[in-house]
């Protein structure tokens, strides 16, 4: 099993405040890894360290994160983020842009402006995001006119357009209704054939449905990391078992 991202002794800080304590885990290629844990346990911080978005809000980190063996701190963050796309909790399509332009934004703003060349890429990404059928006749409509679930799929298509290798998803379905959530989960299952996916979720049932591996964080510590099947049938640590049984947090 190939390892896509190797994390060793990652510590993250907000100023002097340490929010992640010595986290080490390996993310396998083309698998879905779910990060679970109660609020404030550092799961969002963890995922944002991977594509160095943590720095954008004034955070800092130590330890090593290797993407295909390369240290991410030694790479230009702009290039890094083209390899690791991110989808956020609240759908955030660009309000001034049409559906087409939203998907193409990452490419257009990096120099590729030829609409003829962009058209097949936009179509492919919308199909991958399971949104094509619903919008193929309205590509010039405002991105903001879509429903919440559609907007989130639009954001996924947008992230896919820059051809990343990894998709980082920070609670992608928590702002959505159950049917949209199911659509997103089905989507993740399809996407993992071509992308490595790390998904943060506070919904344990979602983690159990969707992921191959699960990592349980608690107050900045990685408590347990194992195959999802094992974690939800016979976890190693008592803390993990208490959490997934709903006995705390």
């Amino acid at each position, binding site marked *: 099993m190939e390892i896509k991202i190797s994390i060793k002794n990652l510590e993250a800080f907000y100023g002097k405040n340490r929010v992640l304590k010595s986290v080490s885990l390996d993310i396998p290629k083309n698998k879905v890894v779910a990060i679970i844990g109660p609020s404030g346990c550092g799961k969002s911080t963890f995922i944002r360290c991977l*594509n160095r*978005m943590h720095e*954008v809000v004034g955070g800092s980190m130590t330890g090593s994160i290797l993407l295909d063996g390369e240290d991410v701190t030694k790479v230009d963050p*702009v*290039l*890094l*983020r*083209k390899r690791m*796309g*991110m989808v*956020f909790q*609240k759908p*955030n*399509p*660009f*309000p*001034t842009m049409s559906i087409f332009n939203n998907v193409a*934004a*990452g490419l257009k*703003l*990096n120099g590729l402006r030829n609409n003829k060349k962009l058209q097949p890429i936009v179509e492919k990404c919308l199909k991958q995001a399971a949104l094509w059928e619903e919008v193929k006749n309205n590509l010039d*409509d*405002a991105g*903001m*006119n879509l429903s919440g679930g559609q907007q989130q799929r639009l*954001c996924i298509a*947008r*992230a896919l357009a*820059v051809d990343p290798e990894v998709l980082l998803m920070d609670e992608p379905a928590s702002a959505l209704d159950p049917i949209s959530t199911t659509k997103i989960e089905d989507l993740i299952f399809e996407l993992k054939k071509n992308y490595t996916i790390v998904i943060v979720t506070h919904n344990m049932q979602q983690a159990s449905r969707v992921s191959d591996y699960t990592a349980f964080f608690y107050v900045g510590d990685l408590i347990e990391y194992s195959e999802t099947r094992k974690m939800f049938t016979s976890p190693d640590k008592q803390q993990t078992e208490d959490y997934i049984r709903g006995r705390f947090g």
Partner: protein
Amino acid sequence: MESGIIKEKNFFHYKKKFTSVVMMSLTMVATIAAIVPLVFIFYYTISKGITYLSPQFFVAMPKPVGEPGGGMANAIVGTLILIGLGGIIGIPVGIMTGTYLSEFGHNKFGYVVRFLTDVLSGVPSIVVGVVAYTMVVMPMKHFSAIAGGIALGILMIPTITRTTEEMIKLVPHALREAGLALGIPKWKTTLAIVLRSAWKGIATGVLLGLSRAAGETAPLLFTALGNRFWSTNIGQPMASLTVYIYDYAKSPFEDWNQQAWTAALVLILLISILSLLFRIITRSKYKTN
């Protein structure tokens, strides 16, 4: 048996009702008091200025006193040129400063800049005019539209800066994050995404700045001075509606006083059209839900 205290129409109930009515009336009175001056301004300007308002007013040049058929073409064009010049200076500087302050200005330097901008917005316009006189008119050895443009530009900067900064702050952080997460460099994110989202608000700030500049008189007295004749040479003195209103209104000739009213009316119309233009430009391209 329901609770008597709440259901009874007792003293407290009536007292509350009375207070409510009083406050409502007071706010209505205050609103009317605020509208009345505006109504008066419009009334006087329109009623007094309408007499001389004709197409000729817009194309003819000023004529000596008493001669019929005069106009203020040069002043109208002059005002437009002057606020245009002011805009060339004030708009870019204002927007860029506002952008800097909101995106990068969370440090000591930013604090200082913000403070100075506030101070600048409080400086009387006549003082700005005198400074422009010293800085531009004296070295050039004559009055000019350039000097006037510089003065007006300086006056515009604080308004535009402040509005730009506020409007950019309103852009949700999520949009910046989305841009950065796509691998778009920060400067491009700011330009193509943040500014693009905030541009309507920024345009409003620009409009405010331009309108303020259009209505300034004192700084122009020291810089553009005024011009009887037709001139679009920005290196030379230039006429403007405000200076004309000043000159004509204080003159002893009734004919000229009349024209001053018309000039005032035209100025108000100019600003209204400017405002309308901005509304059209900034209206939403998409139908909103």
